[in-house]
């Protein structure tokens, strides 16, 4: 089963589909959280050091 999944993942089309879905999901979540507002998450914790 695991080998089958691995073989499936090795296929270029599957890789492309998974990666595109991953980028798309991140973009969708960004739109859901921030909408079309200018997101400003403030500073980073380590910028203070």
């Amino acid at each position: 089963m695991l080998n089958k999944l691995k073989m499936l993942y090795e296929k270029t089309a599957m890789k492309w589909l998974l990666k595109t879905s991953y980028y798309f999901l991140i973009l969708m979540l960004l739109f859901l959280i921030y909408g079309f507002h200018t997101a400003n998450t403030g500073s980073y914790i380590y910028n203070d050091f």
Partner: protein
Amino acid sequence: MTPYSSFLFFIILGILLAPTIILGLNGKSFRLYNMLVSVLVLALIFSNSLHGLIMLCLFTLWQTILIKSYIAYRREANSGIIFCLAAAASILPLALSKLLPFFAVDNWATFLGISYLTFKGVQLIIETRDGLIKKQLPISRLLYFILFFPTISSGPIDRYRRFEKDDQTVWTKEQYEDLLYKGINKIFLGFLYKFILGYCINTYVIMTMQYWTSSSFSHGLAYMYAYSLYLFFDFAGYTAFAVGISYIMGVKSPENFNKPFISRNIKDFWNRWHMSLSFWFRDYVFMRFVLWMTKKKWITNRMAVSNIGYLLLFLLMGVWHGLALQYIVYGLYHALLMVGFNFFEKWNKKYKWWPNNKWTTAVSVVVTFHFVCFGFFIFSGELIH
């Protein structure tokens, strides 16, 4: 403008880096253009802080004079006192920026990125002392290394010789395609970490905690886990952006994180968390201290030398975060964990009490995770204040 904190910053970067991408995809050199972009983005970052910009210029001038003078001196002589003076002078602005708030004086010495620029400056002086840098550095290359904008605010801390190798490379079309792909992937990872996961943990867990925790113990416990995750996603998100943009500019800046929450022990953790800083301290503080002690033979017990080295390293690392009680205690806490683990490792080698298999590894990961989270709880200041 704070780097990587708003979509606007990314839009501006996208426009400015478009020619870099076009040149890279055609196998052409983009070094000069990237230098110009660096100057423009630095102006943008410091556009709302004239004081910060002036201090950055003065600091860069100071470091450049120091580094070039020390390289010129080192070609003729090699006095230990001159080396110590050069290193101390390089650290001086950072030391001032840490000391001034402690004395409740206006912190005029500080600006965004002072720590990370200092680490680069000191590194150049140490590597010159070690004979790793022999030739005088061209001013443009030195400035580009020190002021490389993607990593200016919080690292990762690159090494000059590694940076120079990438900087001098003209990537082929295929090599640049790979760099571009990896860079974009890292930027998306940064969005996931900082803008989604970090944001959600901070907004929906940390900021609402007072409403759903029933006692100070449960509040402390929930805060410990939430803050640890928030710190990771915040900093790892920043690092992903910084490394991603570096890749697009043809520089493979080092990584800062390698799945730190699956560390098997505290030594393993420090090889996975804020790696560029911990490796900097390991190479330029710990190793030098151990070598110095071995050479002078003041302490002959190797275990004792290593433990004192850890104490020195983590105390310095704690103080570097700021002269506040929580950072000093955080440094001491990690020093004690390292010393404790050193003893345990030696003892276990003899008695084989803790075998190495998948079950003990799983338990070790859980135990280490909790020790680490407690460290971040101290670091957050919530325990002490």
